[in-house]
């Protein structure tokens, strides 16, 4: 159930991303709702399907995006890996973990995108990519991190209700 629900959730987020969020750039950077959602999901307590979510998110983005095949399929699981490591380390402050994971996850995803594009013959200037795309994207992702974390937290509580000891 928790795995299958990733399809509609991430699908809707991807549609929002493509139809609306991508049209609202900051300089040339845009927020990545799918990345935020899978990171927020990975940071939830009792959630054990973070990997599945990252794979599904990667597949959906691969279908829609013109990024080289595999960029999202590598980038999202790497971001989730970092989030899972952080969940074990700073489990008492999940919001801090969300911010750090968002920051690192965005950087990882962008580095992988740049490397993948370079491998297929599109060389982008690194300084411009960092200044005009990556840093604005990081800022937008950090701004959206809290609302996305709250929404995904509600979803996780609904799917994994806390067991009460009597």
């Amino acid at each position, binding site marked *: 159930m928790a795995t299958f629900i990733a399809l509609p959730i991430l699908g809707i987020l991807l*549609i929002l991303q*493509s139809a609306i969020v991508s049209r609202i750039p900051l300089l*040339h950077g*845009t927020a990545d709702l799918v990345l935020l959602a899978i990171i927020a999901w990975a940071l939830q307590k009792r959630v054990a399907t973070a990997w599945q979510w990252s794979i599904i998110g990667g597949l959906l983005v691969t279908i829609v*995006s*013109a990024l080289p095949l595999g960029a999202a399929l590598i980038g999202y699981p790497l971001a989730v890996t970092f989030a899972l490591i952080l969940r074990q380390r700073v489990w008492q402050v999940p919001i801090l973990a969300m911010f750090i994971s968002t920051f690192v996850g965005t950087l990882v995803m962008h580095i992988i*995108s740049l490397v993948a594009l370079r491998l297929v013959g599109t060389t982008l200037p690194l300084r411009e990519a960092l200044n005009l795309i990556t840093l604005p994207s990081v800022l937008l992702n950090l701004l959206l991190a809290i609302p996305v974390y709250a929404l995904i937290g509600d979803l996780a509580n609904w799917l994994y209700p806390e067991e009460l000891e009597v």
Partner: protein
Amino acid sequence: MNPTPTRTSLQTVVLILTVAGLILLALGGYLTPVSRYVVTPLVTAQTWLASRYQAIQNLVSAPQDLTRTRQRNTELEAEVSRLESQIIDLQQQLSETRILSALVDFARVHPENRYLAASVIGRDPSPFLQYVIINRGSDDGLRRGMPVVTQQGLVGRISKVTAGAATVQLISDAAAKVNVRIEPSRAQALLQGEITGEVSLDMIPQAAKVQVGDLVLTSGLGGNYPDNILIGQVTGVRRRDYDIFQQASVQPVVDFSQLEIVLVITNFRPVDISPLVPTPGAP
């Protein structure tokens, strides 16, 4: 003892005379001071009673009126909202009609091509790529490589097709390259997209006289695009004596951030010339 008829008649006559006298005195204005003392308390009492009655009536009937007013207000607000949404809808239809009209005009000017209109429904999720998604696909006859234009000029070409949608690589994408011709010098050049979404010209021969304001059109070389499609205007030229080629910046005629409806040229088949390109080491 019963009154006699004569006495009763006398009393009636006295009463009539008294009433008639009072009426005459009243008509003559002689009773005004008297009536003021009599009528004023009556009027005051009447006023007080009427005001209390009115207050009670308002108290009883006001909630009904208030409810009715609120209902009416809600109805009117709903009507206003409906009309506002209708206005927005009509404005959108008007905007689309204007775009379609311009596209039809463009198609009339270029009768050699067959066009298929498509709506832009999204952009690539990756900020590194300048791609848009359109709502037509292989079911509508679209194929990979078909050029995409608007009434203003060249937009890009189809890079990926699914049954109901297609992805268009804009000419402003960093990986996009278009062979162009600069008018009026007719110099050949290569148009390249940049990471910022701008476009620039490279490979302009040193001998070519390129000036700000020159037009940039597709040359048709390379077989990826039809020729003579407008792309933009030269906004700056960089020429250094020690360089092999000149470079120039270009202002595209198409605003890629405002794309709504585009035309796909369906009767153009790109030519794959890659087997003809000599490779190093080949005999």
